[in-house]
């Protein structure tokens, strides 16, 4: 019977082309948009984790309260002991020190006069460490526009737009002026080892990266750090795992009244990321629900049109003695086959577009010239196995449900009036 229905669908183009096209378009849109959304949202989460929050972050309580002000005067002390504790208790994670600091960067000319000056957003990371994985995590090697990564103390990486603004190039000297952990004036000279395109406009325009040990020296932060970030060794964020880690870690310091005692925060608890993570989870589900609803209505309508078009055919089949149930079932079988064909085509197209978008992306840097928010400047889709069924199943169901609804009309036909109708 399936073979019979299949032949019928192929031979009667009017019966198949429109529903297959509608299903294929719907499935394609669901997959392409879902892949695009999870790519965009996931990119922002990954970017935020790598640059700002880690999968978890340990800070002093006072620092955590005022984190927006980069309050290094409230930094964590005795970090060697804290690292031992974190490595012992959570060996699946890599623990790295970070110091965020602000200040002024001044580029001198040959006469020692300022040729350019700007407010800098400084980031000190464990650049020289072989085990921290920070250069790979922040993708610094591939982000170099010019020069190389710092290899010794006194070298600095700078956002390429910031360097342009200062009129400075690789090899030039820069003077940093800021505040130490204790509020004293901090002055230091650096040599630019490389310029970097972070892919985040706000960072390209004002970020400098130095080694953690340099920052400790300049900012008087011996055995201290602003933040200790934890990254899962596989670099994959696991929400349930980090929540458990946070509870275990914070429970140990629950009775400590010191405002500088350490506190652990998960990615979801920082930078309003909690609601963002929930959003990511719910967006796909929302898409599928909307798709099924809209497509059911569209395909119901398509089925109704088809039903009306085939009104005479059903009448003849009923007149020839075919059971109403049989007609209804063949119609549903037809819908299943059309749904599968449409969904396969739509899924294939959707996956192709998603993979292309994942590789090439959409460059939005032109739209973000004055942006200060941390956002990737290229929007990309993200392929996940979920995309293989996220459009396929609803595409098939919508077609079948649409036809089931429209096919109910078959049962309302009266055999007694059939011949009268067929006379027309």
């Amino acid at each position, binding site marked *: 019977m399936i073979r019979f229905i299949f032949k019928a669908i192929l031979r009667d183009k009017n019966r198949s082309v429109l529903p297959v096209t509608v299903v294929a378009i719907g499935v394609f849109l669901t997959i392409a948009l879902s892949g695009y959304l999870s790519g965009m949202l996931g990119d922002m989460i990954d970017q935020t984790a790598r640059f700002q929050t880690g999968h978890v972050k340990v800070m002093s309580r*006072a620092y955590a309260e*005022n984190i927006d002000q980069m309050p290094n*005067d*409230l930094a964590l002390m005795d970090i060697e002991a804290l690292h031992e504790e974190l490595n012992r208790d959570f060996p699946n994670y890599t623990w790295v020190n970070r110091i965020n600091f602000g200040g*002024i960067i*001044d580029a*001198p000319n040959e006469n*020692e*006069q*300022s040729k350019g*000056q700007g*407010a800098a957003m400084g980031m000190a990371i464990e650049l020289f460490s072989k085990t921290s994985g920070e250069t790979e995590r922040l993708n610094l090697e591939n982000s170099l526009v010019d020069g190389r990564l710092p290899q010794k103390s006194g070298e600095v990486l700078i956002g390429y737009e910031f360097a342009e603004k200062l009129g400075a190039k690789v090899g030039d000297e820069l*003077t940093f*002026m800021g*505040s*130490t952990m*204790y*509020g*004293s*004036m901090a*002055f*230091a*000279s650096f040599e630019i080892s490389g310029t970097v395109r972070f892919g985040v406009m706000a960072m390209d325009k004002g970020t400098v990266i130095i080694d953690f040990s340099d920052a400790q020296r300049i900012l*008087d932060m011996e055995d201290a750090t602003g933040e200790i970030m934890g990254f899962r060794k596989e670099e994959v964020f696991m929400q349930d795992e980090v929540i458990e880690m946070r509870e275990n870690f914070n429970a140990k310091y629950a009775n400590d009244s010191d*405002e*500088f005692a350490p506190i652990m925060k998960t990615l979801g608890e920082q930078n309003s990321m909690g609601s963002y993570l929930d959003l990511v989870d719910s967006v796909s589900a929302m898409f599928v629900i909307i798709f099924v609803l809209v497509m059911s209505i569209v395909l119901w309508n398509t089925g109704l049109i088809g039903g009306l078009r085939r009104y005479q055919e059903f009448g003849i089949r009923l007149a020839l003695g075919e059971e109403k149930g049989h007609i209804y079932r063949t119609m549903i079988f037809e819908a299943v086959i059309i749904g599968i064909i449409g969904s396969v085509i739509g899924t294939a197209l959707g996956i192709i577009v998603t993979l292309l978008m994942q590789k090439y992306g959409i460059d939005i840097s032109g739209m973000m010239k004055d942006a200060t928010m941390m956002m990737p400047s290229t929007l990309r889709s993200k392929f996940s196995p979920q995309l293989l069924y996220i459009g396929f199943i609803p595409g098939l169901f919508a077609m079948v449900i649409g036809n089931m609804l429209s096919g109910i009309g078959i049962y309302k036909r009266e055999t007694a009036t059939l011949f009268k109708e067929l006379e027309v």
Partner: protein
Amino acid sequence: MILTLKIFKMKYIIAIFFTIIFALQLSAQDATEILEKVDDNMNSETSITKSDMIIYGRRNSRTVTSVGYAEGKNKSFSEYLAPAREKGTKMLKLEDNLWIYSPSTDRTIQLSGHMLKQSVMGSDLSYEDMMENRKLTEMYDSEVIGEELIDGRNTWVLQLTAKVVDASYESRKIWVDTERYVPLREELFAKSGQLLKKTELKEVKKIDGRWYPTKMNYKDMLKDGKGTDFVVLEIEFDTEIPAYIFSKAALKK
């Protein structure tokens, strides 16, 4: 009868009108006079001040000692004497320009624009606050809006509104000692009306014939903490200062 009543009413209204105008004029005149006397106390042709700046942090507090030279409203020079980390750091202000010399890098950096709004050594004072030497009467229109008692002393409360475009603060409210013509409290506001800074001025002493507060607490209202104390250790008014002090060459000396 009705006409007489109308004339009486008219006279009454005119009398009230002129009384209000006169009172307003008197108030404006009084406020300007008060402010001029404040300027006379707080400003001088030249001054040499040795001071301690006590910066209170949540973990600890620090005392920074410096000596400052000022001439008129456009020239000032400061050298930091202690602690060791700060020793030898110098600042020079000429007109609207500020240069900072750091002995550790042997570089002089010129600050301008919004950089001047940054905090000086983690204190509650910005470079802009440190640089401001102009007289209040040059920058603000004033009005007496009330009287209050502060630490047992009577004060006039003056509302100051900027009349120049480059004033660091759009408006100020100052409490001026009615007897000594020294401000005892000051509140500085942004254009939006937000309170940005609060200053308490205490330990008013008579130095070289003028009343002068020798202990001030500056509080940046956008920051947590107790603010920054500025204690005058020694001060000389109208002493001749050698011209080379106010030159860029003096920074590296």
